[in-house]
Structures are given as structure tokens and as C-alpha cells.
């Protein structure tokens, strides 16, 4: 526990966030995501996606140099659908002054996430609970 810091920010997560620089991407993924195939993995079991995003954004500046600093995975076959988990994520983004996440087709999303600096796998069980974001 540290003064003024969200307790969801674990030692490993804090380390990764502090080590990232401008333009580095962080992928936040749900419990079904094949996250272990990819980069540095930080696990937050038991924490749902909006709660994890809230903790991350308490210290993490979102990039203002790009039009769409945040993106979520599109529902397969329903590109315009907005599952509740994604709506909740947009609400957290809005609280931090960020616009709603853009959406990426599933495979494009995976490709983007594979290039991320780190993957944070939450305990989110709802499907399509998988956005990514980039820092300033």
C-alpha cells in the first residue's frame, strides 16, 4: 500500500506503467484473451475491466498526439455493437477527459495488442472486454 495510490496498482503494474514512454501502448485484456502469447504479462485476477482502467488512468496520461489513443475489439459480425463492458470503459475514459475508444476488428486488435509494451490481463469475464490504450 502506498499513500494516494490506487491499491489495484500492483508492484509489477506500477513498474510497467512507469517504464513506458510516449507512444507506448498498453493492452488491457479480459480473462478469455490469449494474452500469454504476447508481451510482458501483468495479471490482475479478480479485478474487472472498468476497475482496472480506473486504476491505470489514475497515473497514466493518455496520448494527445493521435486522434484515437484508445481502441476496443469489435464484436465479430456486429461492428457497430457496443457491449455493456465497452460502454462502461468509455465512461471511465470520459472521466479522464478522453474520447470514446475507436474499434478494431478482432484480428486487427490482436495485431495491435501484440505490439503493446505490456498486456494487463484482468479477471473480466464478460466477452469483448478488451480495449487497448496508448499513453502520452
Amino acid at each position: 500500500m502506498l499513500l494516494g495510490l490506487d491499491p489495484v496498482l500492483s508492484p509489477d503494474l506500477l513498474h510497467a506503467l512507469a517504464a513506458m514512454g510516449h507512444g507506448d501502448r498498453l493492452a488491457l485484456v479480459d480473462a478469455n484473451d490469449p494474452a500469454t502469447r504476447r508481451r510482458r504479462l501483468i495479471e490482475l485476477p479478480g479485478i474487472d475491466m472498468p476497475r482496472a482502467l480506473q486504476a491505470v488512468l489514475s497515473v497514466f496520461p493518455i496520448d494527445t498526439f493521435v486522434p484515437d489513443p484508445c481502441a476496443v475489439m469489435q464484436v465479430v459480425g456486429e461492428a457497430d455493437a457496443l457491449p455493456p463492458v465497452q460502454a462502461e470503459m468509455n465512461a471511465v475514459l470520459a472521466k479522464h477527459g478522453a474520447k470514446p475508444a475507436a474499434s478494431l476488428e478482432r484480428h486487427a486488435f490482436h495485431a495491435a495488442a501484440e505490439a503493446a509494451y505490456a498486456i494487463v490481463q484482468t479477471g473480466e469475464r464478460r466477452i469483448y472486454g478488451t480495449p487497448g490504450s496508448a499513453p502520452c
Partner: protein
Amino acid sequence: MLKSIDPLLNADVLYALRAMGHGDDLVLCDMNFPADSVARQTALGRLLRIDGVTAGRAARAILSLLPLDSFVEEPALRMEVVDKPGDVPTVQAEVQAEIDAAQRRPSPMGSVERFAFYQLARKSYCVIQTGERRFYGCFVFKKGVIPPDAE
């Protein structure tokens, strides 16, 4: 860079501060301290650095996040000047001011003889070496707790 976190707190230092628990000791040391050899014997097992700043400035950064232990009388300690245990060099007065500011009240540090300090440091969680060149810029901070209803 992260929002609302002192930029002196690099990723490795942040990791250690967060990983420590109640009663774990953190050693803040100067440039002459046998930092690497002592750090290899600590819980973390490797030396952490906050280069290029004084002990006071590094203490301010650390104490912006680290709660001092309220369960013990002297949660912060300074290394005694050899043969002059009562002396408080300027470098130690500067750190004392940072402690008092963080605690929002006067909280005088305890003191430890040099070799006893080395012994204590080997049993600590981690050692952070600063850019402090002045002698006796060596301190121990004991981590405290944050209650569930606190921010």
C-alpha cells in the same frame, strides 16, 4: 512519466515501494555507502538508484508515497557520525525537514552507530543510492500501514 507521481521515482523504485509491507525497512544511502554489496544481501537483492539528487530531495520523493510506521517510536533512523553520535550534519537536518513535512509534525529521527547501521541495512527490504556526496547521508525508513478507509 506518470500523473501525480514524483518523476524521481523510477519504475524499479516504484516497484519496490509498492512491494514492501508493514515493518519492512528501506535504506536511503549516499555515494560512499557500500551500496551494492549491502543491497545484494537485502530482500530485493539488487541496488536501486535515484541518481543526481541530494538525500533530502530523494527522501521527499519517497515519502510522497511511503507511509512511515506509526507502530514504532522511531520509524526513521540516521547513521551516527563516528565518535560524535549527537552531531546532526546538514545533510541529516535536510532529511529531517522532509520527514517533518511528510508527517506534518516534528518526528525526530533515531540514530544508529555506523556498523550497527550496516547490519540493519543488510536486513532491510532494499537499498536506494542517491547522488548525495556529503558524508552521513544514510537513513533507514520503516514502512507503515494505510487503513482501508484512507485514500
